[in-house]
């Protein structure tokens, strides 16, 4: 648990150090409260100086997040947070830069920027709060809403097929990809901690409950009663086993995953073992295809690999150029190429 900049121990931070004075204005019961609280608690576990955390968001309910964090923050414009965060990280690589976005902000209006931030592997921690609805504009379907969803803008049911945020992250070759849920603070804390530790782009989808416009949409999966049967918790090096009795596993049937009762498995080696550091994205992609109700929904770290980051390579190129050419001399640059003199007497003629 170390950050880019060490401060001496003992670690002075508590959760309260990350609480800003601003009144929180989410609806009572909104899942964002839990996310905010877990984030504040998670950062208090790090040695990263508080002033080195920057939270950058777009537009939407979740994008109010930076106002409530007692760190540097920038509540920007719709969908564009990754662009501002990228520019900041390019000039200040020592900062820990977080992007807070939502399903509309990140996958609809800002889809382009999200993809490109991830494929560059710029060292940003992107938290996508997914409630499958437009909340701040009062309840229209979002790009992650299920087909057929009845909302104010889709009274006959949405005819948009939903997009799967983690598939987008895998297609863009993000180096850290995870999913968690607002209802499980302990799991969320683990995921946020890992995201913060990762060097490179981190993409975390958090299932979030919009209590007003899409209440309990994740309840069947993540509700206390059912979660052990319907969530597959991913742990590196451990077999894909789930269920209250831990009696079910995931194995491959041809190219596709299927659920098998462990008792029915011919061999325990049939059960897939989670490998978050697979350099190929195929296995992680397979996990993203496991959807409720046909399959248990995977939670945890889908992928965590190491690859040089954009910000690091940018700095490396600068250093290499300086080494090769020496620090730039402005006067030499202006005089580069062909120059000529006009003398005083020539102007007299």
């Amino acid at each position, binding site marked *: 648990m170390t950050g880019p900049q060490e401060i001496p121990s003992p670690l002075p931070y508590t959760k309260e150090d990350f609480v800003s004075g601003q009144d929180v204005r989410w609806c009572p019961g909104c899942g964002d409260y839990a996310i905010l609280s877990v984030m504040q608690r998670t950062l208090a576990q790090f040695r990263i100086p508080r002033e080195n955390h920057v939270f950058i968001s777009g537009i939407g309910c979740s994008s109010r997040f930076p106002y409530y964090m007692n760190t540097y923050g920038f509540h920007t414009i719709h969908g564009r947070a990754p662009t501002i965060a990228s520019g900041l990280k390019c000039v200040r690589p020592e900062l820990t830069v977080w992007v807070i976005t939502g399903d509309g902000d990140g996958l609809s209006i800002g889809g382009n920027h999200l993809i490109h931030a991830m494929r560059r592997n710029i060292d940003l921690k992107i938290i996508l709060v997914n409630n499958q609805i437009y909340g701040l504009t009062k309840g229209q379907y979002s790009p992650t809403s299920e087909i057929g969803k009845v909302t104010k803008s889709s009274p006959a049911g949405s005819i948009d097929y939903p997009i799967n945020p983690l598939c987008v992250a895998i297609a863009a070759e993000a180096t850290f990809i995870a999913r968690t849920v607002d209802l499980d603070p302990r799991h969320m804390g683990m995921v946020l901690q890992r995201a913060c530790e990762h060097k490179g782009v981190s993409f975390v989808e958090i299932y979030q409950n919009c209590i007003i416009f899409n209440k309990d949409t994740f309840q069947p999966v993540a509700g206390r009663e059912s979660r052990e049967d319907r969530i597959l918790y991913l742990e590196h090096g451990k077999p894909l086993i789930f269920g209250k009795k831990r009696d079910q596993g995931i194995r491959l049937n041809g190219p596709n995953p299927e659920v098998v009762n462990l008792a029915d498995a011919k061999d325990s080696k049939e059960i897939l073992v989670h490998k978050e550091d697979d350099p190929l994205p195929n296995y992680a992609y397979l996990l993203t295809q496991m959807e409720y109700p046909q399959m248990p929904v995977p939670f945890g770290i889908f992928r965590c690999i190491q690859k040089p980051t954009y910000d690091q390579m940018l700095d490396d190129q600068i250093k290499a150029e300086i080494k090769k050419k*020496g620090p730039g001399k402005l006067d030499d640059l202006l005089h580069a190429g062909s120059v000529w003199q006009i003398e005083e007497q020539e102007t007299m003629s």
Partner: protein
Amino acid sequence: MKTENGEWKVGTTKKQLKEIDAVTIRFAGDSGDGMQLTGDQFTDTSALMGNDIATFPDFPAEIRAPAGTLPGVSSFQIQFSEHEIFTAGDSPNVLVTMNPAALKVNLADLVKGGTVVVNTDSFTEENLKKAGWKSNPLQDGTLKDYAVLEIPISTLNANALKGSPIKPTDADRCKNFFALGLMFWMYDRKLEFTVKWIEEKFAKKPELLQANATALKAGYNYGDISETIQARYVIRKARLAPGTYRKITGNEAIALGIVTAAHLTGKQVLYGSYPITPASSILHELALRKNFGIKTFQAEDEIAACGSALGAAFGGHIGITATSGPGLCLKSEMINLAVMAELPLVIIDVQRGGPSTGLPTKTEQGDLLQAMFGRNSDSPVPVIAASTPSNCYDFMIEAIRIAVTYMTPVFFLSDGYLASAAEPWSLPDVSKLPKIQIQHPQSSDGPFLPYVRNEQTLARPWAVPGTPGLEHRLGGLEKADRTGGVSYDPANHHKMVTLRREKVNRVADGIPPLEILGPKKGKLLVLGWGSTYGPIHAAVTELQKQGKQVSACHLHYMNPFPKNLSEILKSFNTILIPENNMGQLLLLIRGAFEGIHAVGFHLVTGQPFKIREIKEKIEELL
């Protein structure tokens, strides 16, 4: 062919040299004929020989339109002289055409009695048809008003390169250097600068080096020995101010201005850009300047380019983005965020013909009102406009100074003409340029207030992430005065809108008064901005020499205007405003100053004004 002592040997003419004070040459051919390179080489040599120069490259948006067709014609015009000049010339005295299409497109511009050089080899039936000539212009009297030099350039070039190991198609591609050599002979230019260029360019390909150098020299020698060509001219060195000079285009000057500003502020620069004509060459130039601490970020789109620059500004460094009109449309929302967040940001707009995709490679001044008003709500942004290729350097630095001094986004307007036009530039002494002071607060007595303002400039403090104790949140929601918290309070909003406007107005406190060329009051003032400077200055100067009562002013600060503009405008009966748009400055002037009699003069052909056009308009009003 080198002699034993390594000198390049060229013929010595016995033909008579005639002295002239200026000449305008236009090289025209297919996009693949290398006309831009040919023009560049002629320009470099003329500059190094001490002439004043002004160029006008004009090329199609297509990389290679079908060969021999009218849309594929590319041209490069240069005026060079022994006195100070302000434009690349209204009309060429000499037109060098590599094919019938180039002749078709450019002939109308040639001065009556001017010289046209034609590559007769290219005047085949097929090429004539492609160019839309119904009969051969070399035979049907089309060229009767001109001195025609019919030269089989392709054949002569091929003959000169006989024995060269390169392929015939590659040999044919050297013919532009043959034409260049011929022009070098006609205008008594030295070959050495272009030879040196060829030697460096083809250092690793000796056969191409030899072929291009041979073609150049063959063209030169052809002039010397040919019976068809008798006239030969000399243009003496120009009487320019003393100093060290180099040739510069507007986009090169912008890039150098940015590197200089990095030096003067002691900051990194993040240049966020998405490729767009005619701004891309700034990105290419800056990408080479990593050892000056310049970071370039080729973004996924125009919005991200602007966002990355704003992010760098939030981080305490210099954020710059550049584009042309269509890209500027996309950046509007991000620029407004910079207005609200009160962060420094410089937006370079190299204007081109519009609307929409418009004329990508042609010049226009159509984005002034977009820069002024193209954002939601009351959103004042300072606007600076360069007027010559070389002063793009000075105004680029100025735009950055204003941005960091007043904590505001700033527009820097250039255009397609300035971007690629070249002129001599008297190099500044960088050790004497004033440093741009930037202070970031390091601590705060009590809670940090990010929207408390400097009394003089109204700038808010630029506290940057990483500073302990100054943690604060910015955003696009309206800010409470002083605290910067989110505020929907009616009176606060009115106050903040007023403050943002007043802050931009105060930029006028730090800019020089506008100067007048000619009498300080009178009947007619020509008021210009941007790249119309050259033709306006030349036209007004020429008319003043004829004793005409006309004055001129040129604006570089479009928002806010210089403080003395009102007084100047009131001192003239009529204000003539020539613009390469349909009257955008005209609208601003009429809106800002009551009781002014202002008339517009509009030209939106994608070409700069000619001096003649401005003169005629002035005379009409006198």
